[in-house]
């Protein structure tokens, strides 16, 4: 009997010791506004690779005033990293889920972007590291990943899916962590919070497309379409948060106002081998335009089935920005010819553009495969640079010691237009603006995305 009691006592003791040793004992739930301690390592040796930062004093002494002197009232602002200080950029991978085709190259682009950034001296001298985890397209994994990231008090997170963005919205605001997201449904980004869309939200993109359609109908209408006088749109799209993002009450009302009829929203399952039923239903509903909010396999299947049904010349077919990618071209091959889309970023074909040239050079330097030469790689690379820009702005404003997610969020919410990598993408955030609005309409011509308009501004169709 005694032996047992001793044993129990031992077990309890060991258990409590183990628990006490658990990382970061927080006796009570701490409000997340606390500033994270920068890792204090007061070694005077500073990394010598500082060349590309022209505004910086070369001395490794403390508090070097940058030449632009952000706020003279705070002389002790530390805008330079201590030796060994690191900044971690967090992002979610979604590389085994249904969006894998486009998000796998995103991970590569992000990695190479950070490598490139560190080559240029990191963020104000701090080495940039990455933390990411594959969520396999499962929201459950996304949430467990978020739980893990949240404890490390991220400055900023990059998300990819609409579903996880929508799901985490409220919690990001509670935890005061800003995110940039590629899943830009209206429901995720508005009302304004901590979610920043990297491209115009889907309903705005659809609105921009409607504008263009209404203005150019006589020029672009399909050769054999029915009701040739009125643009009549059927949306043929995926049955997901992302797929249903284009048609909202606001975007529908806007289309009607512009004299464009939206007659049907036909949905199909991701990966469905046949969408002829949906296309024929659209035809029956009197549509002469098909708009799709899908990517890769989605638009490709619509295009191929339209061709194989012999109705391709009865429809103008268009899609959102994620449809405009290598994966779609590869899957649709020749059927992609003439496909329209909304493209808010530059594409690899702009070979003379400085930003694209830089990314292309890095792509080659890292021996990436041709399959990764997609919009995912391009944009993720730019995302890294955008994060750098926002964090540096925040450092200039509040210094390293007060660098928190909340502070980065303040910077972003007041940032206005930011041309990332000379305009590979253009971000534009404001007090109550959480997504950029500029995009071009492009068309697939001989396997390339050729802009057919100048930069247009999307109507503001955020939910009321």
């Amino acid at each position, binding site marked *: 009997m005694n032996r047992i009691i001793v044993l129990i006592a031992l077990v309890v003791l060991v258990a409590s010791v183990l628990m006490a040793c658990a990382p970061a004992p927080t006796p009570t739930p701490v409000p997340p506004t606390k500033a994270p301690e920068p890792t204090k390592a007061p070694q005077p040796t500073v990394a010598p690779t500082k060349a590309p930062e022209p505004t910086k004093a070369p001395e490794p002494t403390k508090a070097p005033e940058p030449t632009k002197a952000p706020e003279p009232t705070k002389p002790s602002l530390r805008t330079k990293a201590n030796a060994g200080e690191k900044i971690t950029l967090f992002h979610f991978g979604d*590389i*085994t*889920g*249904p969006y*894998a*085709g486009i998000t*796998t190259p995103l991970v590569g682009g992000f990695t190479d972007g950070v490598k490139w950034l560190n080559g240029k001296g990191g963020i104000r001298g701090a080495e940039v590291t990455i933390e990411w985890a594959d969520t396999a397209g499962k929201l459950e994994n996304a949430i467990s990943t978020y739980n893990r990231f949240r404890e490390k008090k991220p400055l900023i997170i990059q998300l990819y899916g609409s579903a996880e963005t929508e799901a985490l919205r409220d919690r990001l605001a509670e935890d005061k962590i800003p995110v940039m997201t590629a899943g830009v449904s209206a429901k995720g980004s508005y009302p304004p919070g901590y979610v920043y869309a990297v491209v115009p939200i889907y309903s705005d993109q659809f609105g921009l497309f409607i504008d263009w359609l209404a203005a150019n109908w006589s020029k672009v209408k399909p050769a054999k379409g029915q009701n040739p006088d009125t643009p009549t749109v059927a949306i043929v799209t995926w*049955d997901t948060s992302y797929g249903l993002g284009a048609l909202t009450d606001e975007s529908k009302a806007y289309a009607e106002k512009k004299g464009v009829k939206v007659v*049907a*929203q036909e*949905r199909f*399952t*991701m*990966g*469905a*081998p*046949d969408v*002829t*039923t949906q296309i*024929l*239903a659209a035809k*029956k*509903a009197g549509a002469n335009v098909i708009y799709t909010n899908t990517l*890769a*396999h989605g638009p*490709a*299947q619509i295009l*191929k*089935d339209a*061709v*194989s*049904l*012999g*109705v391709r010349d009865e429809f103008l077919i268009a899609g959102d920005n994620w449809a405009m990618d290598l*994966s779609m071209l*590869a*899957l649709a*091959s*020749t*059927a992609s010819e003439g496909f329209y889309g909304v493209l808010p970023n530059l594409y690899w074909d702009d070979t003379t553009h400085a930003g694209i040239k830089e990314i292309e050079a890095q792509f080659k330097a890292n021996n990436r495969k041709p*399959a990764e030469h997609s919009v995912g790689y391009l944009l993720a690379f730019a995302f890294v640079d955008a994060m750098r820009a926002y964090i540096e702005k925040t450092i200039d404003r509040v210094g390293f010691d007060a660098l928190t997610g909340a502070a980065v969020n303040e910077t972003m919410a007041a940032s206005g237009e930011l041309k990332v990598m000379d305009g590979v993408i253009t971000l534009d955030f404001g007090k109550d603006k959480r997504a950029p609005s500029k995009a071009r309409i492009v068309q697939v011509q001989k396997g390339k995305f050729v802009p057919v308009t100048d930069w247009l501004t999307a109507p503001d169709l955020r939910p009321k």
Partner: protein
Amino acid sequence: MNWDLFPQFLATGLLTGGIYALIALGLVLIYKSSRVFNFAQGHILMLGAFVAWWFTENLGWSIWLAFGATIGVAVLVGLLIERLALRPLIGQPILATVMMTLALSQVLQGAVILFFGANQRSLPMMFPLQPVILGDVRLKLNLVLAFGMAMLGFLLFVLFFRYTRWGLAMRAAAEDHQLAQSVGLRVPRIFGLAWAIASVVAIVGGVLLASISGVETNLAIIALKAFPAVLFGGLESIPGAIIGGLTVGVIESLVGGLPQDAAFRALHLGDIAPYVFMLLVLLVRPDGLFGLKRIERI
């Protein structure tokens, strides 16, 4: 109701049903011989699509050569699965075999991503993108030809079972394991053969489908539509598989497409029609059209 589109949806349904029937055939073959319901059939199909893609992309083979080589791989895969995963479970309760094939589906899913990546790929097209227009009905040529090939495959297997020694052996083993064993048939070997044939069937379906719609991990999902087909036709019946497959395809297409009212169509009844149908079959005639009746009264 869009009755004017009825012939159209009927034809589309039949063509899609052909693919379901092909998958159902694989399920029936395995169940008939070894009483295992293979939940991983869709994943074997997906694997086939990726393997064929690999042959065309990395070895530069033509699609038809890759098709042939993939069938060879299919035989190996089928034999391996039977030997490594299912044989240790002979004599175990049904839950064990169900779980084993479910586990197998997860392993195959992961393995495909591990070896081929999760990106969508495209196979070279086997048939041109062209319509077949019969009056008001518009069909995809590639789907029509794929349907034709599926039916041809069916015919081959029916002949195989009726007229070859191995076919006879398989029918005997399906009838009674012990009896088959006692007349000198090696029942485990027959299980292996059943798995090999079922894999071939799945992989033929996979390559056909992938050449129409692209190679991706979502291909596995299509096998779920074959489950109602198998139950309707009867778990042990090969003609049942084809009738079940076609029926499910037609039901799905008609229920999904016919209603004219947009609000009603927005319910997407076509998505679940096969499963509601399956529930009805289970309630009314659990053994299906041609399944074996096991009478057990309490």
